[in-house]
């Protein structure tokens, strides 16, 4: 059991208390981040990088979901891909077969996935240890089988059309037009749409973290035996956490396929679940910024390696049947390596690494005001 020893409070000076200052800095930081995000489509001209950014925004939504069950509640889930798939197929069916607008199918994706998670969870979370990890492993394989076999829903190996995002009668995949002029390219339009959803999800996640539920989750993470003794309903907390996590996954899956326009059952395998776990671990388990940072890192890195491949002779850009270092494989190797390195050296992930210069700044300023 860990006991935290809090550092003595810094002596009061003319400057405001450190807690208030910290809050101000956080608010400032978040505001700056939002402004930056809004400006991105006007700064970034490359379609390639905009595309990557949109994928990153969408992945960040899923990563936030995984953060709820893994970072807050401390349970390993290998099944995230299955719930992303549920969200995707729900949205596709409602959006295409039933021709519903996105403000119907997007929440529906969340609800159906969330409920599915809440139904599945009790079986696995009653037992301590790795049983959730193992059970969700089974879930993702069973899910993959279901998508492949339920061909009327999934279109079989050939895949199917995804739900369109239609705003004011316009499918965002064509950009946003006012009459005959294009106001936003498809990338810009989708960037803002995905960003909007991400912001909503982020606010939700932030509120959950600070709520009683969030504290219960973290108590379960830190020592579930002790949490139970203090009166926290451990099983119920885990089930709720898993439901929330699945709901976010559903939103992410729905958006992902809506952006891609077309999707196949083979996307929702174990590899996707592992990718999502990588995002959360690399970004930093337990923090909101960690999930988002991890998602961006994960989507940006392969492209960076790809770009580097031009200059490094031993990396080829084409896949080979007989082996050879290709950019995608190298980037896969690297993200595995980064997972291990992060866990060994900085378990709080990239988000902590990014904070270090700021904490040093803050510490320096506190020294000055004494």
């Amino acid at each position, binding site marked *: 059991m860990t006991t935290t020893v809090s550092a003595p409070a810094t002596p009061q000076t003319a400057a405001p208390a450190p807690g208030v200052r910290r809050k101000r800095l956080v608010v400032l930081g978040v505001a700056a981040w939002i402004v930056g995000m809004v400006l991105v489509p006007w700064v970034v001209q490359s379609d390639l990088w905009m595309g990557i950014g949109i994928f990153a925004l969408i992945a960040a939504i899923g990563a936030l979901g995984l953060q709820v069950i893994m970072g807050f509640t*401390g349970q*390993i889930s290998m099944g995230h891909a299955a719930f992303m798939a549920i969200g995707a197929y729900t949205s596709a069916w409602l959006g295409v077969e039933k021709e519903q607008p996105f403000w119907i199918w997007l929440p529906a994706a969340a609800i159906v996935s969330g409920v599915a998670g809440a139904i599945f969870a009790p*079986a*696995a*979370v*009653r*037992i*301590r*240890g*790795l*049983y959730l*990890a*193992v*059970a969700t*492993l*089974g*879930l993702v*394989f*069973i899910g993959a*089988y279901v998508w*492949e*076999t339920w*061909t009327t829903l999934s279109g079989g190996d050939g895949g199917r059309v995804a739900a369109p995002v239609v705003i004011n009668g316009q499918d965002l995949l064509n950009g946003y037009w006012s009459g005959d002029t294009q106001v936003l390219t498809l990338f810009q339009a989708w960037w803002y749409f995905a960003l909007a959803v991400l912001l909503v999800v982020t606010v939700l996640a932030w509120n959950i973290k600070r709520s009683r539920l969030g504290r219960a989750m973290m108590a379960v993470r830190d020592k*579930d035996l002790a949490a*139970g003794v203090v009166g926290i309903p*451990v*099983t119920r907390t*885990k089930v709720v956490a898993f439901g929330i996590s699945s709901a976010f996954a559903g939103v992410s899956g729905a958006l992902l396929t809506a952006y891609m326009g077309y999707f196949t059952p083979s996307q929702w395998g*174990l590899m996707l679940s*592992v990718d999502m*776990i*990588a995002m959360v*671990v690399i970004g930093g388990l337990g923090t909101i910024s960690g999930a988002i940072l991890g998602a961006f890192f994960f989507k940006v890195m392969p492209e960076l390696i790809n770009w580097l491949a031009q200059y490094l002779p031993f990396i080829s850009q084409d*896949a*080979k*049947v*007989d*082996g*050879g*270092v*290709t950019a995608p*494989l*190298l980037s*896969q*190797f690297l*993200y*595995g*390596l*980064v*997972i*291990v390195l992060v*866990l*060994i050296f900085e*378990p709080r992930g990239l988000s902590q690494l990014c904070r270090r210069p700021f904490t040093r700044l803050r510490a320096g300023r506190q020294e000055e005001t004494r």
Partner: protein
Amino acid sequence: MTLFLQLGFQGVALGMVYALIALGFVIMTKGSNTFNFAHGEFVAVGAYVVLALMPHMPYWLAFLGSVFVTVSLALLVEATLLRKLISKGLTTVVLATLGVSVMVHALVLMVWGVGTKGSAGPVGSGTVEIGDVVLPLSSIATIVSSVLVLIALLVFFRRTSYGLALRATASHQEAALAQGIDVGRMFALSWAIAAALAVVAGIFLASFPRVVSPSIAVVALAAIPAIVIGGMDSLAGAVVGGVIVGLIQVLGAGYLSDYGGGRLHEVLPYVLMLLVLVVRPYGLFGSRGIERV
């Protein structure tokens, strides 16, 4: 009836392969308090290295070479990862093994590519006929070799002092430390044994009618339902669970191919696993201590 016997026999053979992989999981879990998600990749490495060495030397030498490489890889991971992370909790260690599995998977693809290769087994595609029943030589070789390995393992655990020390460590780690047993060395030993088992499993997993391909690692993951069904901390359970999973897959492939899209048999072990988790989470032979929150 002949179909049932043929499929049953092959099911037992595949089951023995899963049993060896499952044993590796259980030995690592009991011997070092960890769960190694990269174990499936070790099976793949074992098979690939044997295949790579086979054309250049007698089979038994290729096998030993692969054991050397795979065990070294496992020990490397254990020494760098496990020792550093064991103090940070099981979750951290398991996530790290996930990272390792990604790395090894990418490595295998970089070295050998995405295509399927040949067979890494010691015997070819020949068959033997007993009455009406046709049995593949590879299945016979699998079963015989696995049984020999199991006997060797039993002798090791029951009759050697290292085996005793390993069992003591699994039974009560601190008491083992207090008796002067080098627990760190026991961790390494458990990983080494698991890796050796992985190589044996690998060559038979890549034996007729299957071949070496990158998907071996995923196929090997079917050993996880085996350990849940058998009981995650039981060696006997790993063997029984493995055989059950093998039978389900082969008999399922034979009899259920008309239902559920033709791949139902691949998924059935996981369905059974979920059922076991709900009804009897400690499996057939596991200890009950692992239960409820």
